[in-house]
């Protein structure tokens, strides 16, 4: 049962989103939340399939945010696109800010790292060369991908 739940979006998150859109006194049955959970999960699979087909036809290996937006529009969810583009724009801005702040922090500690040749230093250089991530990489590597070309900061003159 737990394994099955891993394949679905968490019911707590789904229920919260539902509750926020309904009137304050509205109630939601557990079965309705479960159905919504399944529908939202199927939505992801459905849209991803369409986006993935497009990438395949264009000989690209990575499904990116723009592919998802295109698939949404193609499948009739074009009214979502505007809100998503705004959301994505804000996210990219936030990430740029974080990358800036983070590079300031790493610049001060980099002189110590360089002497030791720490694993984190090596992994940073590896991840900055690719934009793609696979399932095993953790969230911080996504941030490092944005710092492409800035690894020169860690090299002494």
């Amino acid at each position: 049962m737990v394994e099955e739940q891993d394949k679905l979006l968490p019911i707590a998150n789904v229920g919260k989103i539902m509750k926020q859109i309904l009137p304050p006194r509205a109630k939601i049955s557990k079965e309705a939340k479960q159905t919504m959970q399944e529908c939202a999960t199927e939505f992801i699979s459905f849209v991803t399939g369409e986006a993935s087909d497009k990438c395949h036809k264009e000989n690209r290996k990575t499904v990116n945010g723009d592919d998802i937006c295109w698939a949404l529009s193609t499948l009739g969810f074009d009214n979502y696109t505007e809100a998503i583009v705004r959301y994505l724009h804000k996210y990219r801005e936030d990430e740029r800010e974080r990358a800036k702040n983070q590079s300031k922090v790493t610049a001060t500690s980099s002189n110590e790292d360089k002497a030791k040749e720490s694993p984190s230093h090596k992994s940073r250089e590896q991840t900055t060369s690719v934009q793609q991530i696979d399932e095993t990489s953790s969230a911080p590597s996504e941030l490092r991908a944005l710092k492409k070309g800035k690894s020169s900061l860690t090299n002494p003159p």
Partner: protein
Amino acid sequence: MRQAGTYSGLLSKMSGRTGTHSLPLARIKKIMKKSGDDVKMISGEAPIVFSKACELFIEELTKRSWTMTMQGKRRTLLKDDVASAVIATDIFDFLLTLVSESGNNINADAGQVNPR
């Protein structure tokens, strides 16, 4: 009314991000990967896009389901209301099998489900 705050803060710590993603990115990525053998590489932004898209999807389907609830003069949103909303909306056709498999008592007024 629930307030964004502690809970969304916890979520963002778990996903390694600040800001309010209402759905866990790792889970979204897992579902994307399972959607097909072709899906091997996923950019960092794709789950972010989906976290917003799913939120909008859930909101839309919930609103439409609630319309069915009100038609039935009830205050509790039931599984059948979700099924009726799916049937009544063209873009939700991909969900028809899912809602009919759950063994719903489909509202006859909303229309018939034709198995594909």
